[in-house]
């Protein structure tokens, strides 16, 4: 074998090593998109099973309310506390409320809500669908002439698309209550200045940005959870793997999407403040 051949072989091996994970990632993304296409296809087809939709919305939304309330209260409180300490150094306490409000509505509320829901409801959905797969309940649905994507996945994805923005609104509200409590009640920031600066700096665009992100995150986290559960294999261990992948995949996807959505939103919808 000549030296050139050996070099070519090594290059081919390196190319293969680089290509494999890339191909795996593309394949996974493609399969998610195919499932999303099926969700869209079935979402507009009868029958509309109201009870199944309500159950999905209750599981994703209503049942997540206590944990969302708790997390949002403390996120608002700790962000306010850090802001009080940081802004005091510059004598800029007046801007604490606007900073907290903008951070909460644009970023913290949609990202934290989605992560909490991915950990609670996403993991639950992946586990439930995974165990339905390995106990042949999904096959049983198909043998009963019911499309499993229509019955199991469409209500969960649409339920999350509706409920995650609603929970994000709750997060924004309770987060601001927590921030108010720390800044005004505990650290003596003026009540009027706190509220007036929120009113002055926070506009509809900030809230819309947060809710738009929450809608996308809701769709993404539910699709990933359903995908992992729906295609689980390998018994109880396989269900565990599916759940782990659903949670980790959702977290990573939410954070990656967040960057790109923020970039798009800031360049398309945000006018410079005067």
């Amino acid at each position, binding site marked *: 074998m000549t030296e050139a051949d050996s070099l070519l072989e090594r290059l081919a091996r390196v190319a293969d090593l680089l290509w494999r994970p890339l191909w795996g990632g593309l394949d996974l993304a493609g399969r998610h998109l195919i499932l999303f296409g099926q969700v869209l296809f079935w979402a507009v087809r009868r029958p509309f099973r109201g009870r199944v939709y309500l159950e999905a919305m209750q599981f994703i939304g209503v049942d997540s309310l206590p944990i969302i309330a708790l997390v949002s209260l403390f996120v608002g409180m700790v962000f306010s506390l850090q802001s009080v300490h940081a802004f005091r150094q510059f004598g800029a306490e007046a801007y604490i409320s606007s900073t907290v409000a903008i951070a909460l509505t644009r970023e913290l509320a949609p990202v934290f809500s989605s992560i909490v829901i991915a950990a609670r409801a996403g993991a639950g959905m992946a586990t439930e669908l995974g165990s339905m797969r390995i*106990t042949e309940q999904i*096959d049983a649905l198909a043998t009963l002439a019911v499309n499993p994507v229509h019955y199991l996945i469409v209500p969960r994805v649409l339920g999350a698309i509706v409920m995650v923005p609603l929970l994000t609104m709750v997060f924004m509200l309770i987060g601001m209550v927590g921030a108010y409590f720390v800044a005004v009640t505990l650290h003596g920031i003026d009540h009027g200045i706190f509220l007036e600066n929120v009113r002055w700096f926070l506009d509809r665009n900030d809230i819309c940005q947060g809710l738009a992100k929450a809608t996308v995150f809701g769709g993404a986290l539910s699709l990933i959870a359903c995908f992992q559960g729906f295609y689980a294999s390998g018994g109880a261990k396989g269900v565990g793997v599916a759940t782990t992948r659903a949670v980790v995949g959702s977290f990573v996807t939410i954070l990656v999407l967040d960057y790109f959505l923020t970039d798009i939103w800031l360049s398309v919808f945000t006018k410079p403040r005067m």
Partner: protein
Amino acid sequence: MPWQPPPEDPALRSDRFAIRLRGLEKAFNGHPVLRGTDLDIERGKINTIIGGSGQGKSVLVKHVIGLLKPDRGHVFVDGVDIPSLAEYDLNQIRRKFGMLFQYAALFDSLTVAENIEFPLVEHSSLDRAERARLVREGLASLGLPESLLEKYPAELSGGQRKRVGLARALVLKPEILLYDEPTTGLDPIATQNVDDMIRDISQQTRVTSVVISHDMASTFRIGDRISMLHEGQIIESGSPDEIRCSRDPVLRRFIETSGAVQLEPL
């Protein structure tokens, strides 16, 4: 527009056979499971398919109901080739079927009553009272008490779960019933009960039954026709008496090893 049945192949429409498999091939990750399987399922009879573990019995039955698509070959149900159907047409054909899974595959988020009612909710326009009546009738016909109606599958014994699974499969009065290893995991008495149940249903409704099993005692107790699947092919098919006289060494070894059935000496 009302649903139009898919075209039938007159050459493969048969009064004697409800299902005909022709040259069925299926491989998973390059490993062939079915290698040109040919099989005829007799109408109104209990057709038992036997074979060792991993020989593709469950894969075969999943092709019959369209849960798997073959790499090559045909599955004709009343002359209609299942693998070539679009989902909508396939679902119309699936309404001819009921299937009892190995572990019953009851929906564990639904109660017993909701499980049995499920096909009626999805595919009938009956009102709630009528559905409840059919559910109670279905439960009673399989010897289960009404007290089970509000229980969840996790609260049932293995035998009860199988009966509820069968009640769900029967509630739409199917023409063809598929049983995937119905006696797996049951004690001898529960096994005998399930066998009797399969036999009774077959006699009362004249439904075509396909039973996947590796329980030889069960197979010879209930089977009208027995077929042996080995290495992805049907190596022998016939009545229990014909199977007892078979000269096929693989079949004879399989049955003799079970110790449950006496074969005719060669």
